[in-house]
């Protein structure tokens, strides 16, 4: 009985507040916009029966998503931004994780804390911090003008460049931590062995270190890629009007256009896009767990 309650309470909570809401999104994505409150039809009605209700559902909103090129452009550009910013984060994060793993042991805890600290700081504040740096009269432009690199301020804020910087900055800890964990576990004598056997330092790095940190690299990339795809705060604060990201489109569809069925359809398609990377990520994590004793 007690075991039953222990299972039932969290189970029911998640069913009611995670699965049921998602079923509602799916249902509304198949409904039509209506001038009513709530603004969609059909409403489920026990009197007319479930078949009458189901026969009123259609895929109109999904057809609409393929016809208006705003949507597929937004999906493509989200994928593109997520992909390149993941790559950039890896390029910045890997050397840092490597440096941390090879630092003297008594420093590592401190370095680790320095990486985690920004992660605990408000996301919104970290994005906001860049607004003052990247704006036309911001610190970056002031510094570049003063150095004489440029003659007039660069427009960085409200462009995709700012979005990339924002994503790399806010998601960097997610990339560093798994790679660091993989590198720290690695046996340094393997590198020495490779060098003794005639590898140059670079090829030892390429042939030994990179393959051994592969699981960390994969985990870090997914941890950056997956949330970036649906990102809303960064494109809306740092991006411009031409920055298309699907999270922003969904938000505007819902709050500005009040088109709930289309917003729901956008959400369903975004989720479908995410299924592949999520499954790959899960598989990588499982493989890693099995590899460990």
């Amino acid at each position, binding site marked *: 009985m007690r*075991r039953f309650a*222990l*299972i039932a*309470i*969290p*189970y029911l*909570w*998640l*069913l009611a*507040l*995670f*699965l049921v*809401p998602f079923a*509602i*999104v799916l249902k*509304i994505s198949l409904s039509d916009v209506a001038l009513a409150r*709530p603004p969609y039809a059909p409403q489920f009605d026990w009197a007319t029966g479930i078949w009458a209700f189901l026969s009123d559902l259609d895929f109109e909103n999904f057809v609409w998503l393929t016809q208006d090129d705003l949507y597929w452009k937004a999906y493509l550009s989200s994928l593109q931004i997520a992909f390149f910013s993941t790559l950039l984060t890896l390029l*910045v*994060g890997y*050397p*840092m994780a490597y*440096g941390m793993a*090879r630092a*003297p042991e008594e420093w590592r805890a401190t370095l680790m*804390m320095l*990486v*985690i*600290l*920004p992660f605990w*700081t*408000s*996301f*919104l*504040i*970290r994005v*906001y*911090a860049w*607004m*003052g740096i990247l*704006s036309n009269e911001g*610190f970056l432009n002031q510094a570049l003008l003063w150095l004489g690199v440029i003659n007039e301020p660069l427009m960085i804020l409200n462009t995709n460049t700012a979005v990339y910087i924002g994503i790399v*900055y806010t998601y*960097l800890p997610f990339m560093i931590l798994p790679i660091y964990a993989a590198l720290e576990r690695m046996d340094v004598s393997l590198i020495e062995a490779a060098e003794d056997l005639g590898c140059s330092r670079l090829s030892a790095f390429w042939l030994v270190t990179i393959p051994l940190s592969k699981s960390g690299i994969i985990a870090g990339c997914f941890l950056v890629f*997956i*949330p970036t*795809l*649906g990102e*809303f*705060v960064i494109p809306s*604060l740092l991006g411009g009007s031409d920055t298309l990201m699907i*999270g922003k489109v*969904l938000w505007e569809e*819902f709050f500005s256009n009040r088109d*709930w069925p289309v917003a*729901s359809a956008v959400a369903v398609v*975004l*989720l479908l896009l*995410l299924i592949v990377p999520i499954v790959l*990520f*899960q598989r990588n994590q499982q493989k890693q767990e099995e590899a460990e004793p």
Partner: protein
Amino acid sequence: MNRMSWFNTVSLSLGFAFLYIPMIILVIFSFNESKLVTVWAGFSTKWYGELMQNEAFLNAAWVTIKVAVFSSTIATVLGTMAAYVLVRGGRFFGRTLFSGMIYAPLVMPEVITGLSLLLLFIGIGLDRGVFTIVLAHTTFAMCYVSVVVSSRLVTFDKSLEEAALDLGCSPAEAFRLVTLPIIAPAVISGWLLAFTLSLDDLVIASFTSGPAATTLPIKIFSAVRLGVSPEINALSTIMIAIVTVGVITASLVTKHQMVRQKRDEQAAART
């Protein structure tokens, strides 16, 4: 390899500069006299004074703290239960679905979670306010708590619980006297994680809050959309300071605990 190579030193210094300079600039310019955030005009704490006068911000801060305390506490209880069920519960009907529902919210885009919960609340006719934000935050935070707690549960020796049961403890007593003290650090860090996630959340709160309940991130977001302001810098500085003190304290406490645990283990090994 005790000395750091120059490459590692350079990449670490550049990396940490990248991570910290934006926040340092933010903090410095919260003490700026001028309303212009990018031009230094002398030291002043007037923006902190103005912040303290700003009723809207103070109300929002109060709502945010209420939401964070309630949701993280409920999430810790539910998340610990869920972790216990997943690790120790054995087989039961729908276990795969259950673990799926624990992991899915971690990767679900916030816009989707927010949208779906809003549609649920409207569907069942629940008025949006503090209560609905608490429900929403509890739901995603309990998944994080459950992941943190179950990673601790997996590593600890089940035979300790069995020994307590053999010695006459009821299952509830065994949990309270044996399991809970051992997983306590994970439960506490789960609570802290849930608390900060709730404090920080903008997207889900925007969907699930009503006009009556505005949280601090919602307030900050609407102010920041209009541009940079020294008042927001001051507010950010306060939040950064709180987090920094919290994280450093927490890490000192865990370090202390680890040292003590090691000593206890060594003492136990000797006897």
